[in-house]
């Protein structure tokens, strides 16, 4: 057990920090530190491509596919320096951290050659077609159907909560490819182009007034027969593996964002004098502890090389950060006081701190509500009896 970094690691830190700071001070200074995921999309695509140009876009990937085979320590360092430099949130988070690793794990060589270079290069942005209306977080209840027709999969159905679908190029879709099948059986995992007549995206306006999520309607949408990861019927297995990547190194970048958010709360408390309030001090300390423990929890789960293992740190991570961020949002409001409820402009638009308060109400819901997370923890982590399903 060792937490410090080696001299080699520190050299790597110097290299990536230098590059990132130069970019953010120079050509990409205009998008330094922008908070909202939906702002400045074209510039962010250029930023993805700049990362790729210098081989910083997917450092954890194998060198053969454009990565750097970066160690865990290096990935930690890159995440830290990325945030420190104020580089914007990765627009292709889903491609780089979810779709890519899943294709690396389950794809044929031909599929890797077809999809990975566009991700590494920042040419194609991905989104995720899991949730459906009526099925909620219940992937086993997917109703979207896929049938084979003239060498294509033809897909009909509706996905919902497809984050960032409105500017994505590709979507992975879990669909029921075996007619009459139920539950986790008979599902397949398809890789589809967004730019086709059968795909329609309608934004969903959220509580904060923005529209990051979408409904995605698939009406005779098509992809070639070989645009499937695993075999027909393997969809559940592939989807579950992908969810495990969600708890992977992508957590590090997310934590750096949380660090910036907590720092913003601390700065606000210092500015307006709330930093002297003993109760606010307790809550800030609580947030500080929580953030540090998330970091070391993530390092514990990442140091565990087998992601498929039942690992307590990994199993509890989602609910931990979702609760942490919800608490941070409430703390931010209490630090700012009534001031926080007044928008800066004439639009219904919120600064970083009030936006955490509003947005974080969805953190405890999407990707498995806190209730479902607790079921998983009890059943998979503690071996408790499974919650019975109704007769469906």
């Amino acid at each position: 057990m060792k937490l410090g970094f080696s001299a080699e690691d520190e050299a790597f830190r110097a290299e990536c920090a230098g590059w990132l700071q130069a970019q953010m001070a120079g050509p990409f200074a205009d998008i330094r530190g922008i908070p909202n995921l939906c702002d400045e999309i074209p510039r962010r695509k250029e930023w993805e491509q700049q990362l790729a140009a210098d081989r910083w876009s997917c450092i954890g990937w194998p060198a053969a596919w454009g990565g750097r085979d970066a160690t865990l320590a290096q990935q930690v360092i890159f995440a830290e320096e990325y945030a420190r430099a104020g580089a914007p949130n990765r627009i292709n988070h889903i491609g780089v951290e979810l779709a890519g690793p899943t294709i690396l794990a389950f794809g044929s060589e031909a599929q890797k050659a077809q999809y990975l270079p566009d991700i590494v290069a920042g040419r194609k942005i991905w989104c995720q077609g899991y949730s459906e209306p009526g099925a909620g977080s219940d992937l086993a209840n997917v109703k979207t159907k896929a049938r084979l027709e003239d060498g294509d999969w033809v897909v009909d159905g509706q996905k919902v909560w497809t984050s960032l679908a409105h500017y994505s190029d590709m979507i992975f879709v879990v669909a029921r490819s075996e007619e009459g099948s139920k539950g986790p059986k008979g599902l397949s995992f398809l890789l589809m182009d967004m730019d086709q007549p059968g795909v329609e995206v309608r934004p969903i306006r959220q509580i904060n007034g923005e529209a990051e999520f979408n409904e995605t309607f698939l009406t005779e949408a098509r992809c070639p027969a070989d645009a499937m990861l695993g075999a027909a019927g393997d969809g559940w297995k592939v989807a579950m593996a992908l969810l495990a990547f969600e708890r992977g190194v992508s957590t590090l970048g997310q934590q750096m964002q949380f660090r910036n958010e907590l720092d913003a709360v601390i700065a606000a408390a210092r500015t307006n004098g709330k930093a002297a309030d003993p109760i606010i001090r307790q809550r800030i300390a609580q947030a500080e502890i929580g953030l540090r423990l998330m970091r070391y929890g993530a390092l514990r789960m990442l140091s565990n090389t087998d992601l498929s293992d039942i690992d307590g740190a990994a199993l509890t991570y989602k609910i931990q950060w979702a609760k942490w961020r919800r608490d941070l949002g409430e703390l931010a409001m209490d630090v700012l006081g009534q001031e926080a409820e007044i928008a800066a402009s004439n639009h219904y638009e919120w600064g970083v701190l009030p936006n955490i308060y509003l947005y974080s109400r969805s953190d405890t819901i999407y990707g498995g509500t806190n209730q479902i997370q607790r079921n998983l923890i009890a059943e998979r982590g503690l071996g408790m009896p499974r919650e019975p399903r109704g007769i469906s």
Partner: protein
Amino acid sequence: MEFAFTEEQVMIADTARGFFAEHATSARTRAAMAADGIDRELWSSFCNELGLAGVGVPEALGGAGLGMVEFALIAEAAGAQVAALPLMGNARAAHALVAGGTPEQQARWLPALVSGESIATSASSQDASFSNGKLSGTFRFAPHGGSADLLLLTAGEQCLVVEASAPGVAVTAHVTMDQTRPLATIVLNNAPAETVADHAAANRALDVTGLICLAAEALGGAQAALDRTVAYSKERVQFGRAIGSFQAYKHRLADMMIEIEQARSAVYWAACAIDEGSDEAQIALHSAKAFCADTFHMCAGNMIQLHGGIGFTWEHDAHLFFKRARSILSMLGDSQWHREQIAALVLDQAA
């Protein structure tokens, strides 16, 4: 001693509940949110057809001559629909003028406040200056201030009556998180202002009415958040079962009910204590505001959570409750502040 509603009180509650449920619909509230946060038609029917805007104003001054319990029943019903109304502003101003206004001020303003013709707001400032009938200073966070005709302003220990249309008055309405009660900043530059007859009584009425109104609205909102979530949970099926059949879900609803039942005791205790001039009135007011605001925020947060994905969309009404709950939390002193006032009453007086 009888801690149950009279028949008349039950009737007022039923009438108000029915009125708001029928008229303060989501569609109408959203239309008001896109404008200045007031559903004018609702407001007009409330004042004139229902005739409840002056519930706490003596009959001799054109009101219904009832008390804080009755006012709370109405605010609770309005809160249950997150109705977009200047109820708090008008009630505060009316009660302040009843308690401390000059006969001229009462005659000038009460009829218009009770009929709803005039809209009032209140705000306070610690560093405003008043001399020779002219008031200068900045008054922040005035609810529905952008639409107000009458401003009842607390400057230190003074209470001043200002007309919004007077020279030297500049009101800036803000886009506000809770769009059903947008806040405004009022800047006065030597604006003509009248003193009331009894500053302390007027300011006390502003406080009392504001706190009872917010606590009662919070109670109504919390109960509605629970009721709507219960209804949803019986219909919505997931994992092949009505989600309301999951025990964790049920317990969460039970936790809401546990808090709400206490909030209900708090509101009516406080309202009664005010009406009866009880020794407990001050501790009751602080308790009601702190407890009800916390309860509403908890229940509205649970409402979002227990609705799942639909709960955090703009389209669903859950966010209206949540944002109203937040605004009640921070308005007129946050819960921590009210609890500290109670601690001071309990701990700091001579043993």
